[in-house]
């Protein structure tokens, strides 16, 4: 089953490289977002763009990964519509191999996106002060969160009628999660009602941990600790997987 999943993951990666739209999602888009936020909003939020960079770069990584982790549903839905899945199903491979292949391919996409964002950040003067272990830990945690979240997208991809509606529904979920958080501005600057949502939004906690691990604890929100935020993130992963993995695999088996 592992060999089959890798063969199918290779297919997904080949398709991503071929398909400029999807490749831009993980390369050009984080670069554009970084330029946009650092140079346009940096001065307003942090006084100048160079002190905003360590604050916003972890946020841009989180936002990029949020968007990429939701394309899995679009891709699976397209494969079903086009009959590619029926071909797979007529082959003597494990029923979960296409799904595992898609998830494995996505992990590669996430790794590319994170590397591009960090690399571009470094070009702009981002300094890695926390050590390699912290950076690798941040990358691992980000991917763990993405893989936990992707089941939401798999579920939507299996239930929606067209890949277009998968995209629409996914955006509906991603926008409040990414923008209703401390991604771009400190949560303390937000109105009270929004702060209530920000505090329970798992993405906020992911961002805090990413800031702590990549830029250093001084960039985290006042009063939050790396350990405490880490518990929140791991807890969110458990809840996401606990709810959406069974639902997504149920919907997948129904189609498969």
């Amino acid at each position, binding site marked *: 089953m592992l060999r089959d999943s890798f*063969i*199918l993951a290779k297919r997904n990666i*080949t*398709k991503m490289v071929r398909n400029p739209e999807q490749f831009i999602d993980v390369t050009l888009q984080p670069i554009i977002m970084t330029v946009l936020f650092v140079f346009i909003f940096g001065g307003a939020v942090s006084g100048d763009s160079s002190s905003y960079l360590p604050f916003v770069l972890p946020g841009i990584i989180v936002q990029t990964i949020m968007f990429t982790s939701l394309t899995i549903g679009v891709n699976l839905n397209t494969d079903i519509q086009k009959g590619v899945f*029926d*071909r797979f199903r*007529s082959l003597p491979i494990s029923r979960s191999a296409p799904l595992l292949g898609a998830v494995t391919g996505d992990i590669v996409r996430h790794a590319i996106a994170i590397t591009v964002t960090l690399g571009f950040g470094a070009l702009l003067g981002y300094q890695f002060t926390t050590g390699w272990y912290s950076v690798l830990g941040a990358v691992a945690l980000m991917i763990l969160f993405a893989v936990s979240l992707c089941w939401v997208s798999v579920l939507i991809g299996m239930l929606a009628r067209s890949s277009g509606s998968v995209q629409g529904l996914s955006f509906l979920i991603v926008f409040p999660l990414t923008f209703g958080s401390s991604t771009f501005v400190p949560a303390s600057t937000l109105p009270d009602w929004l702060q209530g949502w920000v505090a329970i939004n798992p993405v906020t906690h992911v961002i805090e941990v990413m800031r702590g691990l990549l830029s250093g604890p001084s960039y985290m929100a006042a009063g939050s600790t790396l350990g405490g935020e880490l518990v929140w993130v791991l807890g969110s992963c458990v809840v996401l997987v606990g709810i959406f993995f069974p639902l997504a695999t149920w919907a997948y088996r129904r189609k498969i």
Partner: protein
Amino acid sequence: MANAIEAHGLTKSYGSTRALDGIDIEVPQGTVLGVLGPNGAGKTTAVRILATLLRPDAGTAVVSGFDVVHQSKEVRRSIGLTGQYASVDEDLTGMENLVMIGQLLDLSTKNARARAVELLAEFDLTDAGRRLAKTYSGGMRRRLDLAASLIGRPNVVFLDEPTTGLDPAKRDDVWDMIRSLVRQGTTVLLTTQYLEEADALANEITVIDHGRVIAHDTALGLKRQVGGQTLEVRPASVTDLDRVEALLARVGTREPERPSVDQLSVPVADDAALTTVVAALAAERIAVSELSLRFPSLDEVFYSLTGAQTPAETTEVAA
């Protein structure tokens, strides 16, 4: 001879729609069965059940000696599927598609590559092998689809409407490929909406409608039942209609009909009738403006078999 496919009493419902209502299918090893029926008759549902993509609600099906429900993995190892649904990946090249499927069939990368090269050559796609499948024409895609289903040298191949939407020349290409497949001993189940296609390729034909088998016979037997081909004559002058009618009555297997005011049609048993009629028309010096021999349409097949009009309004049941 052992049966490569044997199904009894297959039923499948989608909600309140009964897509299959207890059908039996038998295909002896090394032969071609044509499953003929209109859209929505249940052809695709039957293929999907036999190819293990769907579970039947009731009934049993054995393919290559394995039960489709309980030994699905063994069945999948012995079948190839090409059709309206099972498709190649448009974002990969022809070569990449075939290599990937070969690898999924447990071939080593090297063997998968060799098999892909072989099949691309066999299906006249060697030059196109490096191009993305989305740049292929309809006929090339069908050939790639067919090649993809043959990588594992399957014992049984399912072809779900393999030529629908192809122009006649491309259709003939696909037919030739199917024939060469059969010469190699492969058992083929092919669904089609055209009696002509079933007649050209199949040893036996099963006609289904509303999820039931309404006829099963050899191509010849079925053509006898429905009157084989139809001869249509349009005399140059309507005053000759009665003479032509009398003449056609002698060669036809049934009474001639008048499908329009200036035209006559009659079912005939074989191609020889055309020669007979041409000679008779010449002898009686009757000028004709149109003379043609054609296979009965699906409507006519159904009319002869059931005495009812084709259920044209039935829509394909989404699977």
